């Protein structure tokens, strides 16, 4: 079986409001950039996979087919995937499976969503709530910020995680976003600034939250043989391989999950997905063997809880390790050098793929010196849907 290579990536600006186009327009921009980066002619592409969370938010059903048409990729096949916030990760895993199975030799992986100001925040909240339990929990007034806040409250009670530790994630991700021209919230802020921002749902404050944004991202994946034949960049760039993919699911309602583990404070599906990906990539000690990671940061605390699920540390140790600088630039495992969902922005279908674009650039050594991790060889992407009811972990490796 042929190995899967990651040939190129592109992003169409993540912003609070993009009146300049539709999600389809942004996907076209991101695709053109990814194809140029890959040194690949679009007419050579075999297949596409299109990731977007919601027809209602996009105001378009079957956007996959529309994208194929607008890009001029007909009559080639296309598949649409959807997994809430984990949609982009599901697209990566789908592409891996399609290429490894021989269904195609090259794939354009694209994702977008429109959750910026074109859509009223109340509508976004309502549509997101539809991705959890509808008849019991949404009907009782439940919504995702409350679910995540409740999970972090439980984590703080169990382990003594502090609001200062949460704030530190926000400071890091907003600062990393300063070096990302496609990010929507680049900011040099302090822990005090975060703690002074208004409470949304305790313990989360305004600056603890990912930013609802418009935008798109694209990657070009292929077999090694196809790459050698069709990519002008193949001989000039470090080669990046897709070496690990894991995915898992969890009961949707937090109250249905077994106790004490995962209980309210832990992401069990993410832990399962990570184990699967590590096994495939032959990684035994993630912090020592990985050089860079993009980790789900729907809220600051989600990033901390994800460190634990991904095996970067034991449960309860994420806050102290963050304070030691382990996940900062220059630390053992820099996390969210793109700015993450907090600094770069969070159009659900785009995020998981944008993570891949960031890891690809890191592994090629192409990021600005302010955020480039030295000699980065292995990078991880972690994204989930629901309150990690669906998790995907992907691992890329640079081998030259």
């Amino acid at each position, binding site marked *: 079986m042929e190995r899967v290579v990651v040939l190129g990536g592109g992003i169409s*600006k993540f912003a609070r409001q993009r009146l300049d186009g539709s999600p389809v327009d942004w996907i076209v921009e991101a695709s053109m950039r990814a194809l140029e980066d890959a040194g690949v002619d679009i007419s050579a592409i075999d297949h596409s996979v299109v990731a977007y969370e919601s027809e209602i938010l996009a105001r378009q059903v079957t956007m996959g087919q529309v994208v194929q048409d607008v890009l001029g990729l007909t009559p080639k096949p296309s598949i649409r995937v959807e997994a809430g916030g984990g949609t982009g990760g599901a697209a990566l895993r789908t592409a891996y499976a399609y290429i490894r199975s021989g269904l195609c030799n090259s794939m354009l992986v694209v994702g977008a969503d429109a959750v910026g100001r074109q859509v009223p925040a109340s509508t976004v909240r309502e549509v997101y709530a539809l991705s959890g339990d509808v008849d*019991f929990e*949404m009907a009782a*007034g*439940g919504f995702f910020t*409350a679910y995540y806040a*409740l*999970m972090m409250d439980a984590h703080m009670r169990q382990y003594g995680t502090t609001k200062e530790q949460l704030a530190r994630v926000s400071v890091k991700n907003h600062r990393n976003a300063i070096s990302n021209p496609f990010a929507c919230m680049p900011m040099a802020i302090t822990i005090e600034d975060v703690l002074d921002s208004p409470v949304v749902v305790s313990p989360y404050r305004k600056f603890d939250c990912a930013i609802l944004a418009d935008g798109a991202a694209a990657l070009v994946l292929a077999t090694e043989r196809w790459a050698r034949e069709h990519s002008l960049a193949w001989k000039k760039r470090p080669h990046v391989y897709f070496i690990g993919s894991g995915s898992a699911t969890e009961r949707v309602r*937090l109250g249905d999950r077994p106790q004490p583990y995962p209980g*309210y404070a832990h992401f069990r599906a993410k832990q399962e997905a990570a184990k699967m990906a590590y096994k495939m990539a032959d990684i035994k000690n993630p912090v020592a063997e990985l050089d860079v990671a993009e980790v789900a940061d729907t809220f600051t605390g989600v990033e901390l809880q994800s460190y634990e699920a991904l095996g970067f540390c034991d449960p309860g140790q994420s806050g102290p390790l963050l304070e030691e600088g382990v996940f900062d630039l220059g630390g053992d495992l820099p996390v969210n050098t793109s700015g993450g969902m907090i600094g770069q922005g969070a159009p659900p279908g785009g995020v998981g793929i944008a993570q891949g674009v960031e890891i690809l650039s890191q592994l090629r050594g192409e990021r600005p010196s302010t955020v480039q991790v030295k000699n980065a060889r292995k990078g991880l992407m972690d994204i989930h849907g629901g309150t990690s009811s669906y998790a995907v972990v992907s691992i890329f490796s640079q081998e030259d």
Partner: protein
Amino acid sequence: MVKVERKLEEIMVESPDGIGASDDEWAAFRRIEVIDFPLTFDFRHSLGKLSRFFLELENQRLMGTCCPVCHSIWLPPRTLCPDHHAVNDWVELGGQGVLEAFSISSYALGADSADESVVLAYVKLHGAKTALLQQLRNVPRDKQIEPGMPVKVVWSKIDVQHPMQLFWFEPDI
């Protein structure tokens, strides 16, 4: 000129990447029209196989489901036991339990105003294996909400929109 009723504005946008017009490959596509685009959805929504739970709320009864194999009582009810994949039976639960986790928001989905904060709490009713999410109301000002706190079901005396509004939790003092 004829009028377009839903037209909100006609604007010139810049490249979102800050590229000047002379280098912008999309320069010919930067004149934008923004319209009002109302979409309304109103469904005839079946509450499905678990409808009995919602119907019995009108009789002030809380129904869970019980697995014939492991005898676990699931609340919220489930059609199948997720551990044994067996079809469950209905079973009634009492109205007392323990708060396990909660959050306090300044708004809730569908709430009209943010005047009062909304407490969403997972409560494990006595006998149940799982916890049910519902609003916790009428907490005395001097009472700290904490996991482990005993709570009870309180029933609405006024008409409601949705069956889940027929009850809520209050501290069981």
